[in-house]
């Protein structure tokens, strides 16, 4: 009964490859996010989607393309992987309809991406 799940948990790949990370939430939330935690441990937002519509794009390289087939899923596709893409990627969701004071986001377990 995992609330926010991600697959795979670990991903090791070569530079130049294309890979995808999947995220699903069963909380009934309408907003989903992708965060990147780099080697300096900062968690930084990359994208947010609300009801399948892109809301936030934090100047992420266009090699990163999120896709939301429905409001319970937000996948992240990365083209032409680079060494600097190595990080832990977290998916999160939030119930936007909850109104003021419900900025609480719920996170998945993370996907550790290693680019060799």
């Amino acid at each position: 009964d995992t609330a926010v799940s991600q697959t795979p948990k670990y991903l090791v790949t070569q530079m130049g490859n294309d890979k995808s990370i999947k995220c699903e939430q069963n909380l009934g939330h309408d907003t989903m996010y992708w965060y990147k935690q780099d080697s300096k441990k900062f968690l930084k937002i990359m994208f947010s989607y609300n009801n399948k519509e892109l809301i936030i794009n934090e100047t992420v390289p266009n090699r990163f393309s999120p896709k939301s087939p429905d409001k319970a899923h937000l996948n992240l596709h990365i083209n032409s992987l680079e060494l600097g893409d190595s990080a832990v990627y977290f998916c999160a969701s939030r119930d936007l309809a909850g109104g003021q004071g419900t900025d609480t986001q719920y996170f998945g377990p993370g996907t550790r991406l290693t680019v060799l």
Partner: protein
Amino acid sequence: DQQVKQNSPSLSVQEGRISILNCDYTNSMFDYFLWYKKYPAEGPTFLISISSIKDKNEDGRFTVFLNKSAKHLSLHIVPSQPGDSAVYFCAASEVSGANSKLTFGKGITLSVRP
């Protein structure tokens, strides 16, 4: 440009004592603040939050204090337990609605000694 700062990278306390984790922010537009707890190889887990209209919020052993004039918040854990050993992230948001996003600090590693 770090808008949320957790200047102490680590804290070690004795079991049963109080843990005080500090967080400072620079963006005066932040109006909602959260603390997340993270164990290794897991995602951050929501712990407690506070709105800018309050100066204190309590939930069991966890209390968050907000000093808006000083742009400072702190998380108090009393009494501390070994299971509290984790990384604690402070986060803040300035906008409600679809454009809301969280800005995180770097985290503080708390170790509670038995």
